[in-house]
């Protein structure tokens, strides 16, 4: 979809996923790294646990469909080469702490002077300006600062994050959409602009609007293990299976109540609850709790029955029943189970990319969408350090072998 366009990706660690999304959509993405490679390459896990910049799986996860050049932007010569690349680029993505690109003469205003059509995307912890704009950050810190952290975890322990960093994934994916908004406008006006994305703001979506609760005088959600506490109501989603856990949407109302009713019929059929429990009005159960006709404690009692029932079944049995009986149950899957999922296999989701330098092929997460006219493709494995220096700096910027050798000797590339 985006094959006519060139993206310069200057992100060092924050926000690599933005360029990968644009690359998946067909754009030519050139990752610009410092000599020696982006810092992300020095984070594990590594292929066969051998630390090496070309074997970092954290890097691989966000760098396919990109070409790679090394360029030292701390040096005038590196900046000059970058400006030449900017002249013909459509997008530039960067993720430095505010102020750093300006000090280099590579901020939006400076590069818009080179290329007024440039869409310049900045992905930062807290945004370009404001009292916290230069605060120190990390995944955990941003999830705390943006709200979702407080809502997850066990009630008797500290709040919990997901064990794979999430904050910059949210910010980078948000930035990809925002970049394309600016791109759409450019088609009319012929002018680029600066896109400023805050990771703190991006993760607030994951509070499911509880960010706004105090503004309207509503109590915060409470974290309860594998569920959510809302005022006097505690809703458990995670239940035990005989070989792990499952998630069940055990809720009420016109949309979800019918699923709960079918679940309770199944449990009753197998002797897990009495007819009176089975036949409660699961559609109107919320209203009945507010009117006092049913108690909040009753939800806790029935959830315990559900847990006692699911504990006797395997995850696969519960998933099969969910499909056959139209229930809201899903296994809490391990990464192995996700990779080996029959659903994803049927959709040919996992895609192999050849890594000739390692003599192996690797299965990657597949296209994030199926587009009928312009399918998303995995065109390239992640680049090795400086892999496309000759192709891009030589072939496209016209440097000859002697120039390249000199730049390498000087440490510019």
């Amino acid at each position, binding site marked *: 979809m985006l094959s006519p366009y060139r993206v310069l990706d200057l992100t060092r660690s924050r926000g690599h996923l933005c360029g990968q999304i644009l690359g998946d959509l067909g754009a030519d993405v050139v990752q610009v790294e410092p000599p020696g490679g982006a810092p992300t390459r020095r984070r594990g*896990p590594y292929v066969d646990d051998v630390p090496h910049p070309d074997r970092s*799986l954290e890097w691989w*996860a966000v760098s396919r469909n990109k070409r790679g050049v090394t360029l030292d932007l701390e040096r005038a010569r590196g900046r000059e080469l970058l400006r030449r690349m900017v002249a013909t680029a459509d997008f530039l993505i960067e993720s430095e702490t505010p102020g750093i690109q300006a000090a280099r003469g590579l901020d939006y205003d400076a590069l818009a002077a080179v290329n007024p059509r440039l869409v310049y995307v900045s992905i930062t912890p807290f945004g370009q*300006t404001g009292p916290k704009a230069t605060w*120190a950050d990390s995944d*955990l*810190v941003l999830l*705390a*600062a943006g709200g979702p952290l407080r809502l*997850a975890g*066990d009630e008797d322990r*500290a709040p*919990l994050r*997901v064990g794979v960093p999430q904050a910059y*994934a949210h910010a980078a*994916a948000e930035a990809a*959409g*925002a970049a*394309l*908004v*600016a*791109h759409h*406008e450019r*088609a*009319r006006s012929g002018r680029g*602009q600066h*896109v*400023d994305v805050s990771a703190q703001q991006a993760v*607030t979506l*994951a509070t*499911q*609007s509880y*960010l*706004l609760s*105090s503004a*309207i005088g*509503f109590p*915060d*959600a409470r974290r309860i*293990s*594998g569920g959510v506490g809302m005022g006097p109501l505690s809703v458990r*989603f995670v239940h035990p299976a005989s070989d792990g856990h499952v*998630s069940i*949407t055990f809720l009420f109302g016109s*949309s979800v109540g019918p699923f709960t009713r079918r679940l309770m019929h199944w449990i009753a059929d197998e002797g897990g609850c009495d007819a009176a429990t089975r036949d409660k009005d699961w559609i109107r159960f919320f209203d009945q709790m*507010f*009117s006092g006709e049913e108690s909040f404690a009753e939800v806790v009692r029935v959830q315990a029955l559900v847990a006692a029932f699911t504990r006797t079944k395997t995850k696969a049995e519960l998933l099969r029943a969910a499909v056959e009986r139209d229930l809201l149950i899903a296994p*809490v*899957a391990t*990464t192995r189970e*996700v990779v080996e999922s029959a*659903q994803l296999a*049927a*959709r040919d989701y*996992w895609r192999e990319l050849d890594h000739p330098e390692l003599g192996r092929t*690797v299965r990657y*997460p597949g296209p994030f*969408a199926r*587009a009928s*006219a312009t399918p998303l493709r995995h065109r390239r494995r992640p680049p090795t350090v400086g892999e496309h220096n000759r192709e891009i700096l030589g072939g496209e910027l016209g440097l000859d072998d002697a120039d390249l050798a000199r730049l390498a000797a000087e440490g510019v590339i």
Partner: protein
Amino acid sequence: MSEAALADVKVLDLMWAIAGPAATRMLADYGATVVRVESTTRTDICRTVAPFHELPPEPESAVVFHNMNAGKRMITLDLATPAGREVLLDLVRWADVVTEAYSAGTMRTLGFDYEALRAVNPSLIMLSTCLMGQTGPLASYAGFGNLAHSITGFGALCGWPDRAPAGPFGAYTDYIAPRFSAAAILAALDHRRRTGEGQHIDLAQAEAAIHFLGPAMLDYTVNGRVWAAAGNADRDAVPHGVYPAAGDDRWVAIAVRDDAEFAALAAVLGDPALTRDPRFATAEARHAHVEALDAVVAAWTTARDPHEAEAALQAAGVPAAVVAGSADLCADPQLVHREHVRWLTHPTYGTTPVENARSRLSRTPAAVAGAAPTLGRDNHEVLEAILGYDADRITDLVAAGALG
């Protein structure tokens, strides 16, 4: 003042809940005309999701609904009536983009699959988004984001090693998929602008969300290793965790990534000698003695107000933040600076708060055009101003029960 970035984009939005409407909310923020279709008999589930303006909740009191649908237009249609279906097809003719988030197969059952809609609008872009995608053995599997985050691996990676899986919070994949949906729609619009060609996009929430777990997935496909839940531990940073602060259920998140940050932390803790303690002198040693180290940090945080702790640590350059609840977030000076909470005029509640766009464009900034539509609010506007129906035709539609 420039025209809104997406002022020329017309979206017919048949989505509901969060994952779909959050994507079209972003388009609306940048000026797209988004017309949602809702039915009075099967209203949006977001109307039943907390937090609420009042209890017991009623259909207009759910702030999630306001937040996902601000700036959109809405028409209520009964698609079981022939007249209602005709209106829908006229909206398809009007639209550049149709979005839907029904269970796979539902649009076909309704007679509104991509082939049918393309017949009335040949260059249409249609985005279908559901949990598992439009094909495959689980295609018809219904569900919400809490199920999708479980089936895609997030649940197993959010918990304590000695406990059952604990999270993540809520319908987690619903907060991931809309970003991918918005990007896919905008890229498809670009392709159509250049070629005239529309297309159908099948976006499975699960397949998009897996991209947020890339390193764990690759560690299995490459090394055969399955990650387990590890609390808040980090592979690199140490200390790294959420520490108790003074007050009821108050916490501070702290992440120390290198020796320099550890020295800064030690200074803030008033014990610079920690960096010379052989248990803590290197990152490797700190990982090996993490329980003792966490106890040292917790002894300091427990005695302090979380905002005070955050300020002291950040002043020294140590990544730290209050574990923010709603009151902290609404008062956060950075989010206030970004104008993150916007108050919109609302017919029932006077005003209602929504979150702002999560990106800032320098020349064509986002603007929230108005509160989410109450049921039926825009029926006449959509029929008259957008479809150009005359008064008689509208009267007939009302009589036929099409606007239900």
